[in-house]
C-alpha cells in the first residue's frame, strides 16, 4: 500500500508544480497579485509531496520491500543500511527522484530566504522552477517510476552496483546534483529578468550568491567524483574525460565564467546579455549532462542503464527548455550594449578573456564528447577522441587564464594602472622563475613538472601579493570582505591544483609487475614487499586481499591491503590500497592471480608512486570553499532592503547612487 502512496504523492506534486509553474507567471504578466501569491504555497506543497515520496522510497529500501521493482533490483538482505539509503539514488529512477528533491531544496531556500525579492520577480522565479519540476516529475511518472510493483515478490533482491558501494560515492550524487540543479536558480533569475524586461543589474546581484553556492557544490561534487575514480577504479588516474565526467565538467566551466561575468554585470552594468546567455548555458549544460548520461546516446565506463524512450523524452524537454529560453533571449535580450565603457587594460577585459577561454573550453569538451555521434551522423565510422585531444586543447585554452589570473585583482574596473601591473609582473614573475630554476635541479628537467611549479608559484604569488597589499593598505575589518576572501581562496585553489596535476602527471611512477610472495620491488626509493593473498569477507562481499609492506631505508612506511571484491551477484570490484601523504601517495592495486587455482601464489600487481597528487583535490576543495565564502558577503544581505524599495517602486531602473557605490 505504501508504495502506491508514494506514487500518489508524486502525482499530487506534479499537479502542484503545474500550479506553481503556470499561475504565478500569468499573475506577474497580468499584474494579478492573487495569482502571484500562489507561488509560495504551491512550492511548499510540491516540495512536501516530493519529500514524502522520497521518504517512502527510503523506507521501502530500509524495510526490504522487494515487492517494489526498483528496491528488488538495487538492494538485497545483506546490503548494509547506509548503502540501502544510498541505493535510493543508485540507479536511474531514484536518481531522477533525487534530482527533483534537490530542485525542491533550492526552491524552498528561495521561497524562504528570497523573501526580500520584489514580489513580481519572485513569482516569476518560482514559476520557472515550477515548470522545470513539472518536466522532471512527468518524466519520472511516465517513464521512470520508482514505485512500480514486482509480482511475485522475490525472496531477495539483486544488488546495488558495487561501483557505488563506497563511502565517497554515497555522497557524490547528492552533492553534484546540488551543483547541477543549483544552476537552475541562476537560470530562473535570468528567465524572470527576460520575461519582465527589467534588464538592470538588480537581478544579477540577487542571483550572485545562489550561483556561487551552486558552483561551490558542483566543485565539491566533481572533486568527490574524481577522488572516487582514483581510489576505486584501480588505474591510478583521477580524470578520464569520460562522457559522464564531461557532463559535470561543462556546466562547471560555464559556471566559472558565469560567476565572473555576473561580477562585471553587477558592478559595471556591462556584459548584460552575455551574463544572461551564460546563465542559460550553465543550466542547459546541466540538463544536457542529464540527457547524455540517461539517454544511452553515449556509453561510458560508469553510465547507468539507458533506454531510448527516456532519451526521447529528455530530448523533447531539452528542446522546450533550452530552445524556449534561447528564443526568449533572441526576442528580449538587451538591445544596446549598456554599462560603463572599459579600456583594453581593465578588469572587464581580463574577465572577458577568461570568459572566452572558459566557454570555448566548454565547447571543446562538448565537441569531444559528441564526437562519436558526429562520426556516426556523417558516416565517418566509429571515431572517438580521448585524453590526448582533451588534455592538449584544455591546457592550451587555460594557459591565458593562468597567465592573466594574478593581474585580476590588481586591475581596476574601467581602466587599469600600468605601473602596478608591471610591479606584479616583475615580482610574481621573478618568484615563478626562481622556483622553476630550483625545480629544474630537483626534477631532472621534466618540462611538465617545471611548468607546474612555475605556474603555481605565478598564480600563488599573485594571490599572496594582493592579500598582503590589502593587509597593509586597508583598515582592520575592511581588509577582506567575504567576496574578496572567496576570490582569493578560489584563486589560491588554482595554484594548488596546478601543482597537483602537473607534478603528479609528470613524476608518477607506475609499474605492472608479477610478484610472488616474499618478492620485492623498488619504486622511487620505496621498497614494496608482497606478502601474498588471503581470503577475507565483508557484510555482502568476499575478497582476495593482498598484503604489501612498504619500507624506506629499512623502516616500514605502510602496510597496504589491496582487495579484489566479489559482490553478491559475482560482480568484481577492485579496492586499491592507498597510503596518502602530503608530498606523495603510494598506491597498490591487485590484478589477477597467475594461477586461478592457487591464489596464495604469484599475482599481477600495479604499484604506483604519485607525487603531490593530493594537491589537486585540495585545490578543488579550496575553490569550493572560495565559492561558499564569496556567497556569504554582507553586501548581498544588507543592500537587499534598499534594492527592494527601488525595484518595487519602478521595476526597470536602479538608483544610480547604488550603482556608483559598487
Amino acid at each position, binding site marked *: 500500500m505504501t508504495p502506491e502512496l508514494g506514487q500518489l504523492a508524486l502525482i499530487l506534486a506534479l499537479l502542484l508544480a503545474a500550479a506553481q509553474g503556470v499561475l504565478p507567471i500569468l499573475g506577474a504578466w497580468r499584474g494579478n497579485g492573487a495569482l502571484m501569491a500562489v507561488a509560495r504555497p504551491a512550492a511548499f506543497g510540491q516540495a512536501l509531496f516530493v519529500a514524502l515520496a522520497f521518504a517512502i522510497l527510503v523506507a521501502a529500501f530500509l524495510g526490504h520491500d522487494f515487492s517494489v521493482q526498483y528496491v528488488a533490483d538495487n538492494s538485497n538482505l545483506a546490503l548494509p543500511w547506509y548503502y540501502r539509503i544510498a541505493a535510493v539514488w543508485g540507479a536511474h529512477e531514484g536518481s531522477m527522484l533525487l534530482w527533483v528533491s534537490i530542485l525542491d531544496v533550492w526552491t524552498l531556500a528561495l521561497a524562504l530566504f528570497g523573501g526580500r525579492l520584489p514580489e513580481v520577480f519572485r513569482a516569476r522565479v518560482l514559476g520557472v522552477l515550477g515548470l522545470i519540476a513539472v518536466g522532471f516529475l512527468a518524466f519520472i511518472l511516465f517513464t521512470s517510476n520508482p514505485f512500480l510493483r514486482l509480482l511475485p515478490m522475490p525472496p531477495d533482491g539483486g544488488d546495488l552496483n558495487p561501483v557505488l558501494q563506497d563511502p565517497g560515492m554515497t555522497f557524490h550524487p547528492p552533492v553534484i546534483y546540488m551543483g547541477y540543479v543549483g544552476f537552475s536558480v541562476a537560470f530562473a533569475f535570468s528567465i524572470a529578468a527576460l520575461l519582465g524586461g527589467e534588464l538592470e543589474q538588480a537581478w544579477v546581484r540577487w542571483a550572485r550568491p545562489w550561483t556561487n553556492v551552486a558552483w561551490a557544490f558542483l566543485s565539491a561534487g566533481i572533486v568527490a567524483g574524481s577522488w572516487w575514480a582514483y581510489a576505486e577504479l584501480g588505474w591510478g588516474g583521477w580524470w578520464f574525460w569520460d562522457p559522464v565526467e564531461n557532463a559535470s565538467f561543462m556546466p562547471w566551466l560555464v559556471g566559472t565564467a558565469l560567476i565572473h561575468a555576473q561580477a562585471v554585470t553587477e558592478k559595471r552594468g556591462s556584459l548584460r546579455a552575455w551574463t544572461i546567455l551564460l546563465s542559460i*548555458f550553465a543550466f*542547459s549544460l546541466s540538463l544536457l549532462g542529464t540527457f547524455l548520461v540517461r539517454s544511452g546516446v553515449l556509453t561510458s565506463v560508469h553510465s547507468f542503464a539507458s533506454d531510448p524512450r527516456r*532519451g526521447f523524452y529528455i*530530448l523533447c524537454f531539452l*528542446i522546450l527548455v*533550452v530552445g524556449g529560453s534561447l528564443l526568449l*533571449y533572441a526576442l528580449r535580450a538587451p538591445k544596446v550594449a549598456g554599462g560603463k565603457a572599459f579600456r583594453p587594460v581593465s578588469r572587464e577585459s581580463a574577465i572577458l578573456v577568461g570568459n572566452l577561454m572558459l566557454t570555448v573550453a566548454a565547447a571543446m569538451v562538448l565537441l569531444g564528447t559528441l564526437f562519436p555521434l558526429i562520426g*556516426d551522423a556523417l558516416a565517418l565510422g*566509429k571515431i572517438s577522441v580521448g585524453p590526448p585531444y582533451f588534455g592538449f586543447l584544455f591546457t592550451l585554452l587555460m594557459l591565458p587564464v593562468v597567465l592573466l589570473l594574478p593581474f585580476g585583482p590588481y586591475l581596476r574596473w574601467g581602466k587599469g594602472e600600468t605601473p602596478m601591473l608591471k610591479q606584479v609582473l616583475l615580482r610574481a614573475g621573478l618568484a615563478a622563475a626562481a622556483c622553476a630554476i630550483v625545480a629544474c635541479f630537483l626534477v631532472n628537467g621534466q618540462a611538465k613538472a617545471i611548468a607546474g611549479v612555475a605556474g603555481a608559484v605565478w598564480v600563488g604569488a599573485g594571490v599572496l601579493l594582493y592579500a598582503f597589499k590589502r593587509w597593509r593598505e586597508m583598515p582592520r575589518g575592511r581588509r577582506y570582505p567575504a567576496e574578496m576572501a572567496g576570490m582569493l581562496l578560489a584563486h589560491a585553489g588554482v595554484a594548488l591544483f596546478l601543482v597537483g596535476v602537473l607534478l603528479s602527471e609528470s613524476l608518477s611512477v607506475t609499474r605492472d609487475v608479477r610478484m610472488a610472495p616474499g618478492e620485492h620491488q623498488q619504486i622511487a626509493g620505496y621498497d614494496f614487499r608482497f606478502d601474498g593473498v588471503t581470503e577475507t569477507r565483508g557484510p555482502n562481499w568476499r575478497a582476495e586481499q593482498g598484503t604489501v609492506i612498504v619500507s624506506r631505508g629499512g623502516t616500514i612506511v605502510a602496510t597496504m591491503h589491496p582487495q579484489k571484491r566479489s559482490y553478491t551477484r559475482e560482480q568484481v570490484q577492485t579496492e586499491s590500497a592507498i597510503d596518502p601523504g602530503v608530498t606523495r601517495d603510494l598506491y597498490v592495486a591487485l590484478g589477477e592471480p597467475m594461477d586461478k587455482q592457487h591464489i596464495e601464489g604469484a599475482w599481477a600487481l600495479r604499484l604506483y608512486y604519485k607525487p603531490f597528487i593530493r594537491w589537486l583535490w585540495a585545490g578543488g576543495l579550496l575553490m569550493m570553499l572560495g565559492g561558499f565564502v564569496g556567497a556569504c558577503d554582507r553586501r548581498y544581505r544588507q543592500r537587499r532592503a534598499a534594492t527592494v524599495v527601488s525595484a518595487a517602486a519602478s521595476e526597470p531602473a536602479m538608483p544610480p547612487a547604488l550603482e556608483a557605490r559598487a
Partner: protein
Amino acid sequence: MSRLAPLLGFVLLAALLGFGIWWNSGHDQREVPSPLIDKAAPAFVLPRLDDPAQSVSRASLLGKPYLINVFASWCIACGEEHPVLMTDGKQIGVPLIGYDYKDDPAEAKAWLAEHGNPYDTVIADREGRSAIDFGVYGAPESFLIDAQGVIRYKHIGPLTPEVIASELKPAIDALQREAH
C-alpha cells in the same frame, strides 16, 4: 541576427542528439567492427587436437567457407554457448572449426567428451600466438572465413540462436549467393 546565433547552434545540437537516439535504437553501441573484416585471415598452422601430428593451416582450408569458433575448457561463457553449437551450430551449412584457445589438450578433450563435440575439426593453439594475429579478445569468439580465406564476419561473445538467425545466417547466405 547575433542574438539568434545561440538558438541556431542549439537547433543543430538538438538535431544531432535526435539523430543519436534514432541511430542507437538500431545499433549496438558496444560493437567495434574488427579491422580484420574483409581482410585475409592471418596465416596459421596449428596442430589438430585429436591428432597433434597432423596440422591444419589457412592454406589447407581454402576453397570452402568455414566458421572458426574460439573456445576453451576453462571458459564459462563457452559452456553456455556449447548447447547452441550442438543444435543450431551444426545446421549453419559450413564446416565448424573449433579453435581451442590457451588450453590444456587433455582437459579440452575431456570437456568435448563430456559436453559433445559439435566441431568438424578442432585445432589447438596452446600458447595463443595465432590468436593474437586474429585479434582474439577472449573466448568465445567466432570468425566466418570465405573460400578465398577472407574474414567476412566476426562475433565476440557466445553465439545465441538470435545471433545465428539474425547475423551469422545472413552472412553465410550472402557467401553462398556470391558463389553461384
